[in-house]
């Protein structure tokens, strides 16, 4: 397969995926706006969080969706509907965590959202008869919300690249040094490089 063919297929594939995501965003956004007009806040939150979930960089609909969900949170606050408030916060929060890649899109929203989550969960827990005080309960909730077990994205990326390099080099070593006859010395030298690469990705996976 020629390089130009690979570039063509990859570009087509990427354009296809992005078109699909754009279409999904538009459909969910429209249905969410309609639901908001009907004051069906649950359906609106579902629709807006689906817009964010089908993330495309620089999409204007995502920013608008976040604002609309904040509007629902405000409405829930005003009407003291804490179940709706919890639903809106949790849905927005999960849709942002669900689109993480090398960095986290809408990270600034997330910081504010996490503090709201801590407060609301603590409030509901105390209302339910929890015996600890407000600050102690909030500390508990904070330790859950802020702790992260996901690997460091940058280190994980480097480790994965080393792993793929290892796989590619293993094949190259076989096909380059055994064209017709087996060149043992070169093959063994290649194995040494492979072991170094293996050490590299092992360390990378351990550290990330």
């Amino acid at each position: 397969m020629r390089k130009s063919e690979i570039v063509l297929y990859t570009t087509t594939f990427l354009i296809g995926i992005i078109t699909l995501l754009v279409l999904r965003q538009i459909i969910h956004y429209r249905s969410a706006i309609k639901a908001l007009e009907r004051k069906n806040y649950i359906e609106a939150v579902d629709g807006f969080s689906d817009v964010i979930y089908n993330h495309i960089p620089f999409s204007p609909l995502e920013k608008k969706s976040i604002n609309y969900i904040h509007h629902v949170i405000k409405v829930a606050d005003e009407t003291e509907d804490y179940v709706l408030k919890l639903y809106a916060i949790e849905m927005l929060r999960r849709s942002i965590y669900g689109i993480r890649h090398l960095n986290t899109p809408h990270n600034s929203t997330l910081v504010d959202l996490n503090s709201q989550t801590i407060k609301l969960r603590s409030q509901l827990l105390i209302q339910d008869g929890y015996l600890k005080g407000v600050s102690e309960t909030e500390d508990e909730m904070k330790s859950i919300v802020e702790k992260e077990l996901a690997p460091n994205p940058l280190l994980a990326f480097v480790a994965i690249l080393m792993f793929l390099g290892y796989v590619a080099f293993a094949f190259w070593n076989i096909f380059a040094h055994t064209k017709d006859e087996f060149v043992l010395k070169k093959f063994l030298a290649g194995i040494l490089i492979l072991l170094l690469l293996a050490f590299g990705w092992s360390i990378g996976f351990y550290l990330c």
Partner: protein
Amino acid sequence: MVAASFGLGVAHPSGYPIYLILGKLLTFLPFGSIPFKVTLVSSLSSTVLLTLIYRFLSAKTNEISALFSVLMLLSSYSFISQSLIQKFYTLNAVLIFLIFYLGFRCLEDYKPKYLLAIALLFGFALGLHHTTYFMAIPILFVLVINLKKVSKYIFPSIICFMLGALNVIYILIRSQKPTLLNLAFSPNFQMLLDTLARKAYKEGSSIEVTKSMFVFDLERLYASIKNIAIITIKQFNYLPIFFLLLGFFAIYKRDKQKLFYFILCIIVYSVLLSYLTFSHSTLTLDAAYIVANQYFVPYLIFFALICGYGFWVLSEILAKNFRVVPKLLLLIPLIYIPEHWFRNNYSSNQVPHYKTIDQLFVKPIKSICINEGDNDVFQAWYMKNVEKFRDDLCIISAPTIKDPLWSIENGCNKAIYKSIYPELMEESESINLATLSPYMKKLRVLSTSPLELNPVLNLHLRSFYSVLDLAVLPEESSNLEALNPTFTKYREKFEDYLHFKPCLSHRTDDVFTRALCSKYVTYLAFRAKDLSETSDKSVISKIKVFFGEKAYDLEIFTNDKNSHLLKYALDIAEYNKIEEFFLYEKK
């Protein structure tokens, strides 16, 4: 698989490091959600596989036959299905095809590099599904044919195998630290070997399955051949069988050794695999979807390849006078693609997504959830660990319950929850039932199935239907009926938040979705029952409700207030009935 990929954790045995690494790599794409990106591993693997098949057959036959073969595979129900979900079977199929291709090249023109590359690929397969090792049988035939040339490359081949197998070190490394998900905790070499041998599956472990290969049972063989025949017809219909026979004839005419090689490939991935995993005397829906729909993708590949040869013979015969006929024949596989595609279009299926959200959302803050079965456990782990939805909950996987201790690792990781749920964090990484009593009294222990059904736990616990799940209560709770108004209130409170409507419009052919929708049927029936007691004049309706695997009949007085809920419940049950499933076989 998605949670383990994103968190660079470890999937269920045999750990699947290669899949997880590729999955994680794709999560770095700056668009789409994490599950969407991990699904691309399967879709890209299928694309690569179809390209490889096309190129292979174009070189061996002609382009139109290669296209026929590719379209046939693309039209098969299971291939489409596996290309669109977060599973490793299509990636595995790529590996199997590459081994097949290198073996084929050895038969054509043996070179040591092919042998070494096969050894390397077998090494990589250690970190994938072990059905790849069925290719050892056809490859053994290739080695016997080239015995003299092969003998001096045995040692380099072993080295290449070990270099490939080194990928499983990933499991050992990632088990050294807390990760988002680790389903095969293997911090030392012995545990790693157990994971690779899939010992956790007991009689389903790789060793036991291999052993059962040597136990001959005529009845089992008959059942496995019958089941394979049923599945083949379901996948491709009857006509391709003609092309298959013609294909064998075409290969025979070219080279008898290659015919034998092809026969071995197709037999190991059909009859032999079926003998080991799919020899059920009656074909249940679970067997059809969990075994047949997944394991037999390599069989479909070899079937389509041989049919490609058959098509080639036919196209050569028709080339002189009826050139247009082969082109028209290409339309045959195209007929099946739309139906198979729509039945597997999971992007239209919101049920698993919303059912998990609903199930977690309705729980009181800081509750303990005892989830039973893959449907409830895996999705909840993903939603909680990766998307942090209701991450205040502690999710325990019920199959690991060992009275009085319950295992908790993945849904309530010590690294985060040690100080939050100290009652659950004893030294043995398990919990004591007695310590949960305060949670139970606050109705904050919930289970997906009634714990009374467990012969040990029924001595200690009672359960009561809440919203989607059951509240678990201590044995000493005497007046359960007094709790009725509390649970009625709960069910009312969350009525608007539950997404049962996708169960009527998901359009997909998914046994897991069916199981999830049964939970909504149960909820709707209970909610209807709550509303039934307010009426005097009413008709009795009987409806099946589900708790885990168990189904019960519930009698409800129908009235104006609850009839719409009952209608939804009955419609959902009807929409998801087993007769609607493509692979369902009438008894």
